[in-house]
């Protein structure tokens, strides 16, 4: 264990301790970084800051929507591909393409497609009678950044779910058919329970990612309009790298870390209950 700790220390433990100290300090930059002990000022502020509070509310909405839609669409696409006997590899390869695009490019692409001067989607919406600018109003801007993330990461869920489906034993499905199970019953009582563990792992991976979602929002909306897309990572970035209030930013970051650990622990406990955590 000791070598592991020695390797881990410079990578994780020391930065963690450093961040904790920062959260208890006022951090000065000019003339070399210097910490002035500030006690719990930053911690008191983070729990009373309405901007951070609203950012958490939006983060929760964003988390539920992106992860929910990605799991739903991913599973449906995986089931469709599973049924596909010819050309499955080709279709899967095409479907996976968005996953290989850097999120910042997904954001730029989304911004271009929704630009009211040049954008294809904006033009299509105008033909349908929708005159509102997609990134210019709160609801549509929020929906747009959610859909951009869903577009990029649904293929990952599809791939993981398809791997799980491929492992469902043929004999089990045949036995269920002989027992008279229809399509829905087969899915509900045989297929989904068989791949639930795989789906749980997919859910864990995407959840951890969704909490720290940043790139697409920063490139497309900058957190606006009217803060409609300002989730916690965007607020954290602003506080750290626009306002250079590094002590307060460390506090927000630690709170994000705590939330991530709570979510991860919940999933690991579920996996543990299923005997998959070891």
């Amino acid at each position, binding site marked *: 264990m*000791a*070598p592991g700790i*020695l*390797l881990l220390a*410079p990578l994780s433990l020391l930065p963690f301790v450093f961040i904790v100290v920062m959260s208890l300090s*006022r*951090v*000065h*930059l*000019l*003339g*070399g*970084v*210097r910490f002035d002990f500030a006690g719990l000022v930053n911690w008191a502020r983070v729990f009373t800051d309405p901007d951070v509070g609203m950012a958490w509310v939006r983060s929760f909405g964003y988390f539920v929507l992106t992860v929910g839609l990605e799991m739903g669409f991913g599973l449906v696409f995986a089931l469709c591909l599973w049924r596909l006997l010819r050309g499955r590899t080709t279709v899967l390869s095409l479907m996976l393409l968005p996953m290989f695009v850097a999120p910042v490019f997904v954001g730029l692409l989304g911004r271009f497609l929704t*630009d*009211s*001067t*040049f954008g294809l989607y904006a033009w299509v919406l105008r033909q349908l009678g929708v*005159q*509102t*600018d*997609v*990134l*210019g*109003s*709160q609801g549509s*801007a929020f929906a747009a950044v959610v859909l951009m993330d869903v577009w990029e990461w649904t293929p990952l869920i599809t791939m993981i779910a398809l791997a799980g489906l491929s492992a469902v034993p043929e004999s089990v499905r045949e036995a269920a058919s002989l027992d008279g199970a229809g399509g829905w019953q087969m899915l509900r009582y045989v297929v989904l329970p068989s791949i639930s563990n795989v789906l749980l792992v997919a859910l864990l991976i995407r959840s951890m990612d969704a909490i720290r979602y940043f790139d697409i929002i920063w490139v497309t*909306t*900058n*957190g*606006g*309009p*009217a*803060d409609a897309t300002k989730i916690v990572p965007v607020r954290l970035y*602003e506080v750290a*790298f*626009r*306002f*250079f*209030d*590094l*002590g*307060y930013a460390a506090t927000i970051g630690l709170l994000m870390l705590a939330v991530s650990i709570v979510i991860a622990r919940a999933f690991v406990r579920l996996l543990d209950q299923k005997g998959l955590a070891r």
Partner: protein
Amino acid sequence: MITPRPENAVSRRRLLTGVAGGAAALAASSLLGGCGARGSSVTRHPDAGMWRQYQGSTLNFISENTAPTAAIAANTTPFTELTGININIVTLELSALVQKVALDLASGRSTYQLIYADPYQVLAPYARGLVDLRELMADPSLPQVPLGVGDFIPTHLEAAGKFVSPDEIYALPYDCPTLIWQYRRDLFEKYADQMSHDLGFDPMPSDASTWDQYYAIARWFNDNATDDVPYGTGHQAKQHDSLMNDFSNVLWAYGGDYFDNGGQVGGLGTVDPGPCRLDSPAAIEAANFYSRLLSIAHPASLSWDWDGLGNAFAAGQLAMCPNWHEYAASNESKLPGKVDYAPLPRGPVRSANMYGGTGLGISASTTADERRAAWLFAVWATSPEIELANLKSKAGGGTPTRTSVYQMPEVVAAEHRPSSMPNILTAAAVSKAWEPQNIGLRPKIPMWNECDTAIFTQLSRMLLGDSKPDEAMRDTTAQINRIVSRGWVASS
């Protein structure tokens, strides 16, 4: 059963000792690297002459991706031929630049000797991290600023070069984008008679035009000329720095301001601006008008920053808009001969034109020789000859900061079409805009970034109907007062 250990196996004790030793060696080498002589690539050759005394050296310049830097970066050969110095230019989007500069100044290592010192995001918060250039101006072994600092347009020198003290100079004015009224002359001329008849005033933009007239013209285009242009006006009203810029023109025109003594706070700047005055009746009236104006603007205004607005205007989506004057080059290439320029309209108090210029500064973390070598570049890059060359450059274009450049015969000739320097087509408008009574200077305070964010966030809420103009102004005032009372957190 005990498995025998192979002869060449590493014991746990040896492994731990090795890892600890390696870590110690790494730490020691990094410490030594940090404490030892910083890898300066600048060496002086005292006998090589004033301009060539640092030949063979290398300098790093970090800049926003602006027109003059694009022009200089496209051809650094003249500087290298003159001085023998190699110059590496890193261009970034402004917020990324501010991060890098802040972290570079904090490290004390001066990776970048030359800094594009935005007055509000770099100069005000980090003035102590920049060299007072007077020490280099006074050095007889270094070249002097051609025609002296008096050749820089006075408002530019004060806004981009100084902070708090009227004597210290932290940056030489390097560029000067300014918000002016950009309009489709072809459409204004086509509809001049009809508009005059319908509106009851001469619609052609002039020094006497008012914001109320601007609104009426925009509305007229919306109602009567959609075959030629979809919307009368467009704005850079994305939740972004651009929204604060766009609104500020109206705020000042109506007699409002961010703080008392706005001329001083915007000109030399201050570390303690006092209470915010955005809740004044004039500011609330300005917010009411701005909200009304944006309600008839192109709907995509709410998602445009200056680039989005510039693209939309050049694409023929708008009859007019307030935008930075450096977009003239792009306008002229996409709508040749069709666009003209004027100072922004007057409000009840004045015409105000937001100044967005920047200076070229030198990091105070540099060694004496580094800052002397950097000075050579600063003098060269802001010299009249290079500002003229930038204007002619196809790679960038320029926004000269020197009075003498605007007086050069070939520049004067280029103020009228056909012009080989499209940015100079705006000369008449910007020279009016830079007069002390017309220039718009946002507060130059160290905590401006946070105040700016509060302003454009509340304005965005107002434009989307989440708050009324008076509520937006009062909420912004309260937020700014909180930010200012906390002080500048990153200062030393």
